[in-house]
């Protein structure tokens, strides 16, 4: 039977154990995420979201970090999943290369992964069209606004068609209006591509606006405090003033306060 779970985390723990100090960052974290869903992770500042994010991506952690438990992405270890192109990464900063144009930045993973020239051109053309970036394709990243830069970075992550998009506070640097615009864009992309999105954020409102469910983490040693399913239809722009929408925000705020103490 084909599993419907794309992420399965069981009893995950992370301890930084050096000569000088011992710091338990993650403790007994267990959750799973279904394919095609949109899930947000929220937690107090410094609760270990970044460590969890790195572990999910299969990126190396510090030498003194001891990992316990199990992470499975598409039935594989995170590093294997990363190597088999199951994971697309969108970071807090757009991390675009200034010496490449928008088009070339989107092409970067495809070139590295050895796709043929024709495939690269076709995929880039599709992505530029899908993201409304055609007229900016020859711009350098610094010539774009922060929101546009992040859109390019999302396009770059989508280029090689990963099953899972891991997004680490991608819109944190944007103002409210652009942030909402990008929220709508990401929902649009999610609905079009049917990708699974795991979205790390600091914003309660953003998590409610975007996700089907929100995972609330506690302060260090971080563990899962609550998982809340957001049962609101999309587009959420129609729900923003509804009492249910505010109820979810209030509920998550309450949990986040409890989790921070």
């Amino acid at each position, binding site marked *: 039977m084909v599993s419907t779970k794309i992420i399965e985390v069981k009893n995950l723990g992370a301890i930084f154990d050096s000569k000088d100090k011992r710091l338990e960052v993650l403790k007994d974290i267990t959750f799973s995420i279904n394919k095609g869903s949109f899930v947000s992770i929220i937690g107090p500042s410094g609760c270990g979201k970044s460590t969890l994010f*790195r572990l999910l991506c299969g990126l190396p952690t510090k030498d003194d970090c001891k990992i316990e438990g199990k992470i499975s992405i598409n039935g594989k270890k995170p590093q294997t999943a990363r190597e088999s192109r199951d994971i697309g990464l969108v*970071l807090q900063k757009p991390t*675009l290369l200034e*010496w490449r144009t928008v088009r070339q930045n989107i092409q*970067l*993973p495809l*070139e590295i992964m050895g796709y043929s020239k024709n495939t690269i051109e076709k995929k880039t053309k599709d992505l530029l069209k899908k993201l409304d970036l055609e007229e900016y394709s020859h711009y350098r990243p610094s010539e774009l606004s922060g929101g546009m830069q992040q859109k390019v970075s999302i396009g770059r992550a989508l280029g090689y068609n990963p099953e899972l998009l891991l997004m680490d506070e991608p819109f944190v640097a944007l103002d409210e209006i652009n942030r909402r615009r990008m929220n709508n864009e990401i929902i649009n992309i999610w609905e079009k591509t049917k990708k699974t999105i795991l979205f790390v954020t600091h914003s309660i409102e953003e998590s409610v606006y975007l996700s089907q469910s929100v995972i609330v983490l506690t302060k260090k040693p971080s563990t899962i405090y609550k998982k809340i399913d957001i049962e609101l239809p999309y587009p959420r722009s129609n729900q923003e003033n509804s009492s249910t929408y505010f109820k979810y925000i209030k509920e998550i705020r309450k949990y986040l306060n409890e989790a921070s103490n």
Partner: protein
Amino acid sequence: MGGKIKQILIIIFVLVLIILIWEFLINYFEVPKRIVPKPSDLYIFIKKEFFLQHSVRYQSVLTKTIFSLRDAFIGFVIALIVGLGLGIVLAHSKVIYSLLFPLLFLTQLIPVPALAPVIATMLGYGYPTKIFIITLFLIFPISIAVKNCILNIPLSYKDLISTYSIKRVKKYRYLIFPSLVPTLLSQMKVLSTASIVATIITELPLSVKGGIGKDIYNSFNNQMIPRVWVSVILISIASLTIFEGITILEKYINTKYKYGEY
């Protein structure tokens, strides 16, 4: 454009003024030629050196300068390649860094004239030693600059490339080498002049013939002071021209391609 022409005219005016004051002061204080020659003495030497026929065996100041510049260039290229490789190794291994850093640092602490005899006793007083010393003198700054540049690339960029491929060669091709371009260009600028200085100093204790450094030394011993002065001026003009050339190249590449910008 007008500002540039004005700047050049000012420089020419200042140079002419310096030459006139120089000529006047030497005449006025009757300073002997063996101490400081007058510009007119240098002019006479230049006329004789560059515009009169010499025997086939005669090596002009220009020939010797070109000879030294060629060796400086060879040392510079080798130092650039070896320094780049060494910088990469130093950035990736803390153990190698702690082993090699003191040795590399020593090459900067000990002056070339002191280091040259030590190396010459091992490698001989010939051409390979000359190139080796020039290279050794230049390796430290470039390798440290390369190492620092690699370590200063933001982690998020390194992580990102890691998600596309685990092959280190890809990380170098798409991220690290383009990031190194401004550092290498800026190092080339500094090293180009340093390589000329190192070449001239290295020629003194070694028995390699044909270099301008050796010629300056011999001319000085034979009281051919205008020849010494013209040689020094020639070397300075060559250094300045090369430095300016690389500066223009650096500006062009950095402005057009934006390598190493995030």
